[in-house]
């Protein structure tokens, strides 16, 4: 039963409308007296830790078995994999969210859960990188190790050379240890995962003063669609978001420092901000938004007791967070608009089209997911929405001065610009981004914006849900369902993070144009063959997947254009090579075309074979792909039954 004021007790005659308003007010209102945030300090329970370690290990074994069965297309695969995931997430989440768990135990279990989820990502492909973005950074890191120079061009990720920090750190590990790049990268990502969770916990703990809210906030963050996979990839965002949250943690911990101590903290923040500026554009943007907003809120804040020194420090940090990425972009030439601009434009157009019901706003449907996965994601979103509804005003109330925590008075104070902590105010408002990010994720064009937004927005969501669970759902008594239900809900939210992380987190058989589900040994061996028999650095073009394999395993110079204005899709699609495409090939410097006949077996899972903006709902035909057989000057030098390589160098001799 929810906590209700005394006047709701039986026998009291009240107006139903008033009762309804009071009920809603009691549910969403800013009452913080529902429960004291933390239990008295106690020791970590080694017994629970041992049992949970063993449970997690068993779960990981099931996950590995699930992947092995999935590779072979066995129907039993989901019956191994998903129970493994549930066994991994549920008991650990329950224990972390349990009201009486000690701080040290919560922290240990958060690390355990985060690293175990990372393990699940790694065992999907335990010997090599497999994600699309991972290939892009792997190629860049390989180039850096070969040439021993920074800022080498990367045709598959033109903005990549401007943000080389991930490649720098990973190649530093390779150089110092002698480990292969995959192992060094995986080690780096494992450390980053732990650091992220540690920093997020410290950040929440600094601003709320409660390890319990901090731990629950971290659990809620794991419900973000980017936590399990996207932020665990060998990609610059994985490093960027860690530096970003670390900066937030250092800044929040320094909020009460004065004099030289504050200056020292500023020194560390400046160092981290400089690193972030050269690491990842969006993460630097998140830091600029957060620190800039905190600086503005501090300037707006009415608090006679607030020292001008503190305002100056926050203002300086905000200015630095905004200025450094801009300076770096200017120094390197601003490619960001060209890179992110089309994504943002398409996303907004598609969302607006969806809202206004414009035709053709999102022609092709989203790739299908199993029903159970979709239901889990939906349930997690609903639970998060419930947490936000019941936690938003409470989070704002936490920011109010401590002497004014009754009824709606704290919110009046906040509206009157009297608050204790601008960070709490901003993060509470930031949580509003959650429904917007979900709306974007409902469209194909806006999916990427929603996904990227989630990374940042979930910091606010984590805080608000943490406050909601501790101050409303668990309440003061913390018995019966009040103990169990919030913990179960949090476990479902974390499971939602797994189900929304990828179309199919379980390894399966080859699928056409499905990014990591399209990477398998035949494609890899063909790319390796090109390196062994043709040498590295030949100019190749192909579909999106084989381009990645050729550039990484094959070390080939892959091209995303035949010549300026002619995309590879124009050459590969259509049953005959039109004069424009033929002459484009003749004029180009392309040496080889790689044709994957598997593309003719099914429509592209992600909706495109070549580039995301070239969407297509039907499969390519064999005639389209094999039309090069009969063109004079083109020879078919390699054929393995599925993959064919054409040598087009003979065409250039016709010029």
């Amino acid at each position: 039963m929810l906590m209700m004021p005394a006047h709701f007790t039986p026998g009291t005659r009240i107006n139903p409308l008033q009762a309804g308003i009071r009920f809603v007010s009691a549910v969403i209102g800013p009452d913080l007296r529902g429960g004291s945030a933390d239990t008295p300090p106690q020791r970590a329970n080694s017994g629970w830790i041992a049992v949970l370690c063993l449970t997690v290990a068993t779960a990981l074994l099931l996950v590995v078995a699930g992947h092995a069965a999935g590779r072979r297309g066995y129907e039993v695969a989901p019956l191994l994999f998903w129970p493994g995931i549930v066994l991994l997430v549920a008991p650990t989440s329950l224990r972390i969210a349990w009201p009486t768990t000690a701080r040290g135990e919560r922290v240990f279990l958060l690390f355990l859960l985060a690293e175990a989820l990372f393990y699940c990502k790694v065992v999907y492909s335990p010997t090599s990188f497999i994600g699309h973005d991972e290939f892009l950074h792997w190629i860049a890191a390989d180039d850096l190790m070969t040439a021993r120079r920074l800022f080498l061009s990367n045709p598959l990720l033109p903005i990549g050379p401007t943000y080389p920090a991930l490649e720098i750190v990973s190649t530093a590990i390779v150089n110092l240890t002698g480990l292969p790049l995959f192992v060094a990268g995986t080690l780096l990502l494992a450390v980053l995962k732990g650091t992220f969770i540690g920093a997020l916990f410290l950040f929440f703990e600094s601003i709320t003063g409660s390890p319990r809210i901090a731990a629950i906030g971290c659990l809620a963050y794991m419900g973000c669609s980017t936590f399990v996979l996207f932020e665990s990839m060998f990609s610059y965002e994985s490093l960027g978001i860690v530096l970003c949250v670390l900066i937030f943690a250092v800044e929040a911990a320094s909020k009460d420092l004065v004099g030289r101590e504050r200056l020292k903290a500023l020194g560390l923040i400046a160092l981290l901000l400089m690193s972030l500026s050269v690491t990842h554009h969006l993460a630097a943007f998140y830091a600029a938004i957060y620190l800039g907003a905190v600086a503005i809120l501090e300037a707006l804040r009415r608090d006679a007791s607030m020292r001008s020194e503190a305002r100056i420090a926050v203002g300086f940090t905000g200015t630095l967070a905004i200025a450094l990425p801009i300076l770096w972009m200017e120094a390197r030439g601003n490619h960001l608009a060209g890179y992110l601009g089309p994504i943002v434009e398409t996303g907004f157009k598609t969302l607006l089209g969806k809202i206004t019901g414009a035709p053709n706003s999102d022609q092709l449907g989203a790739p299908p997911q199993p029903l159970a996965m979709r239901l889990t994601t939906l349930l997690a979103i609903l639970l998060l929405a419930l947490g936000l509804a019941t936690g938003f005003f409470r989070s704002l109330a936490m920011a109010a001065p401590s002497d004014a925590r009754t009824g709606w008075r704290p919110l009046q104070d906040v509206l009157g610009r009297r608050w204790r902590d601008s960070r709490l105010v901003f993060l509470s408002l930031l949580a509003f981004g959650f429904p917007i990010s979900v709306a974007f994720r409902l469209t194909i064009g806006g999916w990427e914006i929603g996904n990227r937004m989630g990374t940042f927005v979930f910091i606010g969501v984590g805080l608000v849900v943490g406050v909601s669970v501790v101050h409303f759902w668990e309440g003061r008594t913390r018995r019966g369902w009040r103990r169990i239900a919030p913990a179960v809900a949090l476990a479902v939210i974390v499971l939602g993070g797994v189900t929304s992380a990828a179309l199919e987190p379980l390894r399966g058989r080859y699928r056409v144009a499905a990014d990591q589900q399209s990477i398998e040994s035949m494609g890899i061996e063909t790319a390796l063959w090109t390196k062994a028999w043709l040498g590295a650095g030949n100019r190749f073009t192909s579909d999106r997947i084989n381009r990645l394999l050729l550039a990484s395993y094959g070390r080939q110079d892959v091209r995303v254009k035949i010549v300026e204005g002619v995309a590879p899709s124009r050459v590969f699609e259509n049953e005959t090579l039109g004069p424009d495409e033929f002459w484009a090939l003749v004029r180009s410097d392309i040496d080889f075309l790689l044709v994957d006949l598997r593309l003719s077996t099914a429509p592209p899972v992600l909706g495109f074979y070549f580039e995301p903006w070239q969407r297509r709902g039907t499969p390519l035909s064999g005639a389209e792909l094999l039309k090069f057989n009969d063109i004079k000057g083109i020879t078919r030098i390699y054929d393995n039954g599925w993959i064919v390589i054409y040598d087009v160098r003979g065409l250039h001799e016709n010029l």
Partner: protein
Amino acid sequence: MRICRKLDLLAACLWAGAAVAAVAVSDSLLIRTALGAPMVFLVSGHTVLRAIGVRTGSALQHFVYAVGASLAAGIAGGFALNAAGSLTPLGWALWFWGVTAAAAPVAACRRDTPDLPAWPAPARVRLWQGAAFMLALLVATGAYALAVRDEAAYREFKYTAFWLLPSASGESGRITVGIRSAETQPQLLDLEITLDGQPFAIFRSLTIAPGESWAREIPVPVLATPQKADARLYRPEDNRLYRSVSTLVPRI
């Protein structure tokens, strides 16, 4: 109880020196990883943190900040070494040693360097708990090993690759023909090569075992005009064309 001595700084310097020595003289992955990885992730950042004088309230906070500072030191090192043209193993080892050796004296000499935070009290671990923990580690490691083995062993597509290239060694007047089997059974194949439509070479009853490759360089006449070489692979069991490839023989 807080650790107030500065022995950690001396240990960090020694560690950095040992890492340089390991990179300079050793090829052992184990030694270099044991000494090098902590330099990238922790040791350099720890000394930088101490040099700046940031006070940390808990071991967790100190470790997290130290990792962040280490990453920052590593990123800065990338730019510095790039400018110096020294993005080499020894360059990296010297960079981290330099950061540690420069930061440690600053931290040691300043008066207001904060003490290290107290370590959390060690939890009492019973025998069964320790055994469960070790078993968990073993199961997780074993599962990973199984995943690696399974990835290497399983192939979804069984195929025979066939190729014909102008010349693998770069010599004119030669073509290279090759077959590689990624099937599950040995393959018996016949190979025919034609030059501008005229029969040129035949290889009968080639047996290619799974995982095996077969390749030959074949001398061909070089003419003033390019010739087209075609190679066809047949399976004697059904005498049907199985694969077909072609290449141009460069002219003189």
